[in-house]
């Protein structure tokens, strides 16, 4: 890890970032931050501006306006200083085809200011962490599979033990076993490094990240912890109820537990009716609702809470107008 220094409030700061290409605005007025040691998922549909934002933060592209800072160092004013705290793995993970993995990582360690006496040890360590030692260390990068190339990219990112790691689609093209491995690796960074990770695999982001930042058409549409976003964007708890009761009887029973309850009929078969019951967030738990229905004398076969995942949050966030309902 880099030498001890005062801990900044945010490891990554994007403040009113804007990037324009002529008349096209790729990123507009985008603000968010990543705390030290935090893992943040950066989500958005294709063309939303995720890679552009990440490139501005990594200093490989300049923004039109706004401020980007890594570990308190302005990317625009002191790019070399910012890069000393940062590792960035671009989307397509470009690697030189004609170098062996160990040679490449050794070169990168030297360029990233790893102390000369620690270069060999760090290279060995990241190769072990990324499971490259046995099957890839002596091979030319050009001969590696997509999965191993991604591992080389992540090993490179971790080499100098940076304070901030930006990974653009690190699991793209990997098989489920490899994704699991990379996910565990990223999870192991929690508390050690601030990680900003973009991915289209929302389940993976939900598993790994402390919070998410969602952008659409270059603008922030939501950011925060998954639970908070669920409450904000999906303000209802929904239950599937299978009963012999009719809709009116079910609605009356539900309203005895929660006056704002709503009921929608879904299906009916063999005398059993399936309903979707929507209650505001923070309403009585499933057991309370079940108790109310049984107490009302309704024949009940099933009651199940529908869990909204990050996918639902993402869809809800990207459907609403950019800039509406931002969270900090």
């Amino acid at each position, binding site marked *: 890890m880099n030498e001890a220094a005062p801990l900044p409030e945010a490891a990554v700061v994007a403040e009113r970032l804007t990037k324009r290409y002529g008349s096209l605005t790729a990123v507009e007025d985008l603000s968010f931050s990543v705390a030290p040691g935090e893992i943040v998922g950066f989500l958005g549909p294709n063309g939303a501006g995720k890679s552009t934002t990440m490139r501005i933060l990594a*200093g490989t592209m300049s923004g039109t306006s706004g401020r980007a800072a890594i570990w308190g160092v302005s990317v625009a004013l002191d790019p070399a200083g910012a890069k000393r705290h*940062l590792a960035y793995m671009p989307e397509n993970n*470009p*690697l030189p085809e004609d170098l062996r993995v160990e040679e490449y990582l050794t070169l990168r360690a*030297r360029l*990233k200011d790893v102390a000369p006496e620690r270069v060999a040890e760090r290279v060995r360590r990241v190769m072990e962490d990324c499971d490259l030692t046995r099957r890839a260390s002596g091979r030319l990068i050009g001969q590696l599979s997509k999965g191993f190339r991604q591992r080389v990219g992540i090993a490179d990112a971790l080499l100098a033990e940076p304070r901030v790691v930006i990974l653009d689609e690190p699991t793209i093209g990997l098989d489920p076993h490899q994704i699991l491995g990379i996910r565990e690796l990223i999870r192991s960074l929690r508390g050690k490094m601030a990680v900003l990770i973009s991915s289209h695999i929302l389940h993976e982001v939900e598993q790994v990240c402390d919070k998410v930042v969602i952008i659409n058409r270059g603008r922030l549409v939501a950011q925060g912890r998954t639970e908070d976003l669920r409450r904000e964007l999906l303000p209802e708890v929904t239950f599937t109820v299978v009963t012999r009761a009719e809709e009116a009887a079910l609605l009356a029973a539900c309203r005895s537990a929660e006056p704002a309850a709503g009921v929608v009929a879904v299906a009916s078969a063999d005398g059993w009716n399936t309903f979707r019951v929507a209650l505001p967030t923070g309403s009585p738990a499933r057991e309370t609702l079940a108790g109310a229905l049984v107490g009302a004398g309704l024949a009940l076969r099933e009651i199940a809470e529908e869990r909204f995942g990050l996918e639902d949050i993402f869809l809800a966030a990207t459907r609403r107008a950019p800039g509406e309902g931002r969270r900090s």
Partner: protein
Amino acid sequence: MRHFRTLLAHELRSAALSWNTWAAAALFLALMGGIHFFALVDGARAPNSRAPVEATLWFFWLPLLCVLPLLTMRTFAEERRSGTLTALLTTPASPAAVVWAKFLSVWIVWTLFWLAFAAFPFLAAQRLDGANARALGEASSLWGGLCFIAVSGLLHVAIGILCSCVTRSAALAALLAFISLLALTAAGGALETLPIESWEWLGWLREPAAHLRTFGHLQDFTDGVLDARPLVLYGTGTLLCLGLAVLTVEGQE
């Protein structure tokens, strides 16, 4: 420039392991070997004022136009195409260090090619008796010519590097370098052949023409004449081209 040495070592190693370098070396030695052979044959048939070594060096423009672009074309164009330049610039290494490392690496390789060529006259001299060996030309001419190649090579390589910076296509970079080097080499001679003296409105071209006479510089070096003006021309031209190359790399998005 803190990472310059690391980058230079990497570039030299890559050049040594690249098929491109060896293909260029083979082409260079075949070209210069052939030219030197014909210069020797021509010199034996009809001895003239110009010794075979000097006559061979007079054809320096041929490998300059055909071989040097092969060495410079991939330096940046290939890295830009594959994206590895972006990855390189995410490290604390500065664009200036990257440009200078690539430039110096190509210049060293180019100079080594010419040092390898120097073996031809020595091998020829070993096979001839004393008088005939002396007729091949003075060793000082050879070393003077090689000094010219090394000094002018700074600018020539810098032009090739700049051409490679402005495109993602190695082939286009080679073509741009070819045209630029041809223009630079021919410019002095072309300007000298114009009847500038009789056209008063072209009088301002007299000075630049005098500075750009590439073959005149070669003659000066082989004759052992040390003139500061070509050194300034090649030095400042090199700095200008590399400065533009650094700005180009910095500005790439």
